[in-house]
């Protein structure tokens, strides 16, 4: 900028700043200070959390730990690795996402593209809001009631003496966990569908396509990045949830097949995930092996951060603020 030599004379930056501040009420200055403080504090808290977890993680994680199976025991050096929890986490993510994805996308499509009768659409929307707000512990305990019904005996295993159904298995935990992912997939998909301009649909109808053909050939490809974002967010919530795992996966250290059928037996059986492993190995749990808990929490954080980076990566092409919801 050209050098100002106005007849009013030059004032230093400092003078102008002080002059400006004289126009401010003291309370407002405190407000600005507090806002900056909060902003900086949030960054500091997150940074110290990351640094601390990274430090502890690198201290205790090694390849051997990642690829060996956990063993029962009270001595931390004897309790093996975290292979089974890692596998368990991935299994739960796959099962839950596979169920949640069609459910949430279908519901979003119906709401936006059909949505009649209106009252039913409103009920469905509120229903999904209720799921989003429902405590996962309540969802978990509901799942336990369901999967202990005799009609779901195939999903887990029953006591040998013909007693009650155990109700805890990968199938049970994965199915119930899918509810956790539904709201985020639903919300992003619905928002994306609503932002598709009307003329896009009208152009497709104008070509003689049916509604369903429009959905499949035009709308779904358009909103695919948003569905991916919602799914990645949902996966993050699945990977991070502990309550449902503790109640519905049995939280056994190793994967234990429920029946002898290969493959399916594992699904019917119990196991653990990284979250339940951390919970059980924290001082409040049964294991009390802080080193292992830190290591597992570190791996879990890596997974969560990777999913968030993925969201940011997909989200670069999407508009809007990408704060959590």
């Amino acid at each position, binding site marked *: 900028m050209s050098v100002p030599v106005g*007849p009013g004379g030059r004032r230093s930056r400092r003078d102008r700043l002080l002059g400006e501040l004289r126009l401010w009420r003291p309370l407002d200055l405190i407000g600005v200070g507090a806002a900056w403080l909060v902003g900086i504090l949030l960054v500091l808290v997150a940074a110290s959390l990351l640094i601390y977890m990274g430090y502890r993680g690198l201290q205790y994680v090694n390849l051997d730990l990642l690829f060996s199976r956990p063993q029962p025991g009270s001595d931390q050096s004897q309790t093996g690795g975290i292979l089974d929890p890692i596998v368990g986490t991935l299994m739960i993510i796959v099962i839950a996402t596979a169920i949640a994805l069609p459910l949430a996308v279908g519901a979003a499509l119906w709401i936006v593209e059909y949505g009649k009768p209106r009252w039913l659409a409103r009920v469905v929307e509120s229903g999904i809001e209720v799921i989003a707000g429902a405590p996962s512990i309540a969802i978990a305990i509901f799942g336990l009631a369901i999967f202990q019904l005799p009609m779901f005996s195939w999903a887990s295993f029953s006591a040998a003496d013909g007693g009650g159904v155990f109700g805890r298995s990968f199938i049970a935990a994965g199915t119930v966990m899918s509810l956790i992912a539904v709201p985020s997939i639903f919300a992003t998909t619905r928002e994306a569908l609503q932002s598709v301009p009307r003329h896009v649909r009208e152009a497709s109808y104008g070509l003689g396509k049916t509604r369903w053909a429009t959905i499949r050939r035009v709308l779904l490809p358009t909103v695919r990045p948003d569905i991916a974002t919602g799914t990645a967010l949902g996966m993050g919530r699945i990977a991070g949830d502990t309550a449902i795992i503790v109640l519905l996966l049995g939280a056994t250290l190793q994967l234990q097949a429920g029946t002898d059928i290969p493959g399916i037996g594992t699904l019917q059986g119990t196991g653990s995930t990284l979250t339940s492993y951390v919970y059980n190995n924290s001082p409040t749990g049964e294991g009390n092996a802080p080193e292992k808990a830190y290591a597992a929490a570190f791996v879990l954080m890596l997974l969560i951060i990777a999913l968030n980076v993925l969201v940011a990566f997909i989200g670069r092409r999407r508009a809007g603020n990408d704060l959590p919801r």
Partner: protein
Amino acid sequence: MAEFPPPVRRISSEQAPNVVDPATRQEIPEPIARALAPSYGPERLRIDEVSIHYAGSARPAVNRVTLPVRQGEVLALIGPSGCGKTTLLRSLNRLVELTPGATRDGRILLDGDDIDQLEITRLRRRVSMIFQQPNPFPMSIFDNVAYAIREQAMRRPGKAVLQPRVEKALRRAGLWDEVADDLGRPALRLSGGQQQRLCIARALAVEPDVLLMDEPCSALDPISTGVVEELIHELRQNLAIVIVTHNLAQARRVGDHVAFMYLGDLVEYAPTEELFTNPRADRTRDYVQGAFG
């Protein structure tokens, strides 16, 4: 009003607006000092060689414009859309700085002081702005008019202080008779024309020196437009007013001087009647005769 601002440059006692022919980009040599005869009182605002660039655009939005704004006159900025008139207006109280990537060169003097040397808040208290879309706040009529008085004060003034000032501002804006019976009504319930006059009252309540108006009537019906134009006519006694408009008839009705801008350049500046009846630049003639717009 004895104090004239000191001369900005020594080239002439009052430098002429730099009138540019957009076709050749040559300054039109014809002296137009006669247009600048100080018949309207002291100069309050001087726009001196102001250019404004937006990041990501090669052309400046405003290109080296020089213009005077005097006490007691209405300066109308006209030109086709995208000619930079709104950008120029928004730079006069530094609102343009809210747009990321906008940079300004050149000086703007308010009563001889460079506005960059003023506190931004103090500047905006003296140079207030009316927007294209009426923007009353979501509160009562009274609270809207009292808003700036309250928020500018270091300590919140009481109702007894506010009441007469609110009434005076509403009277000046010609809205008092219509709303006096219920000042507690939400401002957003008023009609569009009333809302715009409320915004004018809101600005007048803190008695600015200069009033900037960005197409204040473009969202209004013809009757409201007439009322607002009448109001502008009365207000200029005590204020310097700069109004941006794309409505030539309006510029002719309310303007004392008219500046025609085209693609960022100031093409012509003249007393209103002269610009409309006897434009010097071809471009101006084409525009005021409706050849393009």
